[in-house]
């Protein structure tokens, strides 16, 4: 059946099961939008393309499915860049469709032209510029396969305006033929044997679980395996939710602001079983002093992650779920009583805590209350900075895909649009954006999107009238010279919410914290902003100074 390329793409996306796309129209994609007009695919109109990319990313992280975003050529495409880089760093399956100037205008600095494939090459898993209409469907099939297979990641397809309008015969492409892309899912049996031997010999094993567990839906396998060898499980920030945080084997998340007992546990271990983690500098601190006595089993679907930051004793390339099943079948049950005695001492001596103060709202207290009132069931999306770390420390998640945060790139402005994506992916869950007063202003315009879509997202601003994390560093390492981190002015966030037809409320007294959260949770027809006026000089502890050893923490 003959149709335009634009119509063929829409039909293909329908056949692939895409239900929702996030985007912003423009001249180069107008034909594509015309084709979307009568489609069963829901289009969410964001207010800035960065919001589209983050929303698609949030949708992908919350659902485990492909997230799709659309932008026009030139400025539309360049506005996607931060969102794509965010998805790339956290291995999130996102498909970006961008318009491009007509093929005859390519390379001539035409109106709204940018070298989109050139710009996004380092921040996508792969990208395409389609110049032949006959290639389009094959390219889409490949792109979705690449984005969602192996180590997931964003893929961009750039399509000139005249290609969108060209006529082709629709034929669903069944096969993908990519000789250069063949991820290894099955771990090598010999490596599994070596790993099993190390596990048997170890006295102080620890499992270090990362975002790869969540991406490969391996949570159940992780728990079974951990229980069988009775090993503590620490996570990276991205691994939060890989194991329920009330599970007796859970031992906190490690790193710069990880729990002290988590950092001690991994640093004093004699065997790290690392799964779907990349040993990022935020997790390991100074790599030379990281876990000096530990042997390392490193399991990852991406061979390039193995050996990038550490030298493992047993490298295993494979899918986390399959590898954990293999390991589970091969290992002998194990008890580690001495080790657990030590860990429990650390847990008792260095719990995650903060000093309560009278008559001021402390951000940690706000998170604790949110946790209590939502019974640990809400999807927590965060912005970036102190708010993110307090959310990670004090909201104990139970399930994978329940904690959505920009781990690798640390993108301020991620939270609100990602929360929109998450809420659309999981409409029956409570979705909360834990925000800072700095971050929320980086994509505040997406409040309009949330209002239009009637999404009752709860935006809880921990408002300390400053860029808290940088201010904290300045306090501790720059002699309290608060260069450009204290805000003298803020918009009235309550009025701002109301201006957008959302709900807004300011909380200045500790006694009001609980009732305000409850009030917010009752609102079901529009987003809610609660502006919690918290103490300006509250810091995130524990803290490992950048480049320090993770067992040398500033506790408070």
């Amino acid at each position, binding site marked *: 059946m003959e149709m335009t390329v634009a119509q063929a793409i829409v039909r293909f996306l329908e056949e692939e099961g895409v239900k929702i796309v996030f985007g912003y129209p423009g001249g180069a994609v107008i034909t594509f939008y015309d084709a979307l007009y009568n489609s069963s695919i829901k289009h969410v109109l964001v207010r800035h393309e960065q919001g589209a990319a983050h929303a698609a990313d949030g949708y992908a992280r919350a659902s485990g499915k492909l997230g799709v975003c659309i932008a026009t050529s030139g400025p539309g495409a360049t506005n996607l860049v931060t969102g794509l880089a965010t998805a790339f760093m956290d291995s999130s399956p996102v498909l970006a469709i961008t318009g491009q100037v007509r093929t005859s205008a390519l390379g001539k600095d035409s109106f709204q032209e940018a070298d989109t*494939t*050139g710009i996004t*090459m*380092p921040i996508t*898993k*792969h990208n395409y*510029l389609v110049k032949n209409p006959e290639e389009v469907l094959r390219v889409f099939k490949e792109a979705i396969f*690449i984005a969602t297979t192996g180590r997931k990641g964003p893929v961009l397809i750039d399509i000139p305006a005249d290609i969108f309008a060209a006529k082709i015969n629709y034929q669903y492409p069944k096969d993908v033929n*990519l*000789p*250069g*892309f063949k991820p290894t899912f099955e771990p090598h049996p010999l490596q599994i044997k070596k790993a099993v031997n190390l596990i048997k010999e170890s006295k102080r094993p620890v499992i270090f679980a990362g975002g790869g567990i969540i991406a490969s839906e391996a949570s159940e396998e992780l728990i079974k395996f951990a229980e069988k060898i009775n090993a503590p499980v620490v996570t990276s920030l991205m691994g939060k939710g890989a194991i329920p945080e009330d599970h007796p084997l859970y031992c906190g998340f490690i790193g710069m602001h990880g729990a002290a007992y988590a950092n001690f546990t991994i640093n004093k271990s004699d065997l790290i079983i690392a799964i779907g983690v990349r040993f990022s500098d935020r997790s390991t601190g100074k790599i030379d002093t990281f876990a000096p006595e530990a042997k390392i089993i490193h399991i990852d679907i*991406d*061979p*390039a992650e*193995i*050996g*990038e930051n550490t*030298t493992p004793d047993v490298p295993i390339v494979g899918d986390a779920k399959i590898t954990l099943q293999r390991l589970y079948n091969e290992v002998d049950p194990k008890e580690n009583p001495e080790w657990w005695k030590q860990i429990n001492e650390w847990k008792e001596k260095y719990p995650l805590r903060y000093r309560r103060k009278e008559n001021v709202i402390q951000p940690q207290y706000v998170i604790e209350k949110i946790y209590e009132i939502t019974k640990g069931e809400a999807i927590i999306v965060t912005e970036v900075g102190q708010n993110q770390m307090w959310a990670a420390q004090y909201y104990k998640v139970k399930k994978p895909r329940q904690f959505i945060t920009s781990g690798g790139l640390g993108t301020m402005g991620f939270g609100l649009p990602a929360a929109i994506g998450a809420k659309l992916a999981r409409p029956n869950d409570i979705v909360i954006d834990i925000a800072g007063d700095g971050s929320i202003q980086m994509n505040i315009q997406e409040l309009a999107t949330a209002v239009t879509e009637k999404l009752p997202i709860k935006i809880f601003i921990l408002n300390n009238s400053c860029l808290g994390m940088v201010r904290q560093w300045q306090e501790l390492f720059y002699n309290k010279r608060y260069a450009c981190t204290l805000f003298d002015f803020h918009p009235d966030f309550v009025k701002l919410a109301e201006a957008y037809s959302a709900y807004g409320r300011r909380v200045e007294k500790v006694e009001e914290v609980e009732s305000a959260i409850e009030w917010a949770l009752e609102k079901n027809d529009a987003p809610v902003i609660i502006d919690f006026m918290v103490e300006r000089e509250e810091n995130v502890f524990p803290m490992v100074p950048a480049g320090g050893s993770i067992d040398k923490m500033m506790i408070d």
Partner: protein
Amino acid sequence: MKHTLSILVENKPGVLARVAGLFSRRGYNIESLAVNTTESPNISRITLVVDGDEKVLEQITKQLYKLIVVLKVNDYTDTPVVERELALIRVNSDSNTRRAIIDLVEIFRASIVDVSEKDLVIEVTGDSEKIDAFIKNLEPYGIKEMVRTGKIVMARGMRLNNK
């Protein structure tokens, strides 16, 4: 240590940019580069020389394999290979020096491809050391212009299996 990598890639627009971009953004310097198609029109071969220890090389290789367009990466460093580079050299030459230069050209099995009153253009092929040596011998006459290709290599004997 210098490594010679031979990378088979899909013959598509932008592939070289992907490969070269990977090197530059991870801070690895490409010392020499040669690209052209192979016996198969869909496949190109990039031969490049890069400096780094085993660990760096392993990481480079893994990162190259992450590129969807990369089919095969061979490190020819410790393999017996036929290695060639080509150089075109324009060197000062008048009637007094022409004979001496022609002798040099013969010794190095190079060839003179252009002659004018004041200079000669010489073509030379061989491994990098041979070309370096030839250039050194020509320097006293005054080299006016020079172009060198990147290095290309092919394994000796049977085709190399990737380690």
